[in-house]
């Protein structure tokens, strides 16, 4: 039953990551939401699936996929952010209220 708890946690992380992709205003903020969704959601869901499968060779293969995702997702996120920063994309700032300042 604890396997389904991990799977539910992974699905919740996936849903909120997608919500961040749709609602956030800028490239860098969207990248932050996407990175958390990839890392935490994928790791929780794969750990849940490994617990449901039990200890055998297929569970070891799922562990190899998990380690690969955990190594490559931050690298891909960093590559996208570096590419956008080199091309001069400015980070989003909130507009100042002229009357209040």
């Amino acid at each position: 039953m604890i396997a389904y708890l991990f799977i539910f946690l992974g699905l919740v992380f996936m849903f909120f990551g997608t919500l961040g992709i749709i609602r956030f205003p800028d490239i860098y903020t969207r990248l932050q939401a996407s990175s958390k969704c990839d890392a935490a959601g994928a790791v929780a869901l794969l750990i849940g699936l490994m617990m449901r499968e039990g200890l055998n060779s297929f569970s070891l293969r799922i562990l190899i996929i998990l380690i690969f995702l955990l190594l490559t997702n931050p690298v891909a996120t960093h590559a996208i952010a570096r590419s956008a920063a080199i091309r001069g994309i400015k980070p989003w700032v909130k507009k100042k209220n002229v009357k209040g300042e």
Partner: protein
Amino acid sequence: MTAATIIITVLGVTASLALYRVIFGPTSWDRLIAVNLISSKVIMIMVAAAVFFERRIYLDVALVYAIIGFVSIIAISKFLEGEDR
């Protein structure tokens, strides 16, 4: 409603929601972020199908899909970076 149906339905619906950012994204990097997210979700769907439906070959397909997705994301981001190097 079994557990496999719920998991695959939730992952598919969230991947379809991320497709909005692929179509209407203002810049190319937004589209790249959303494609990365959809690729990760497809890997999750393949692993869930391999565990719940007893199709063990999907694990190998998921691993190869992860490798090709990572290489393509790195290549496209280096391509968008500019013409110098």
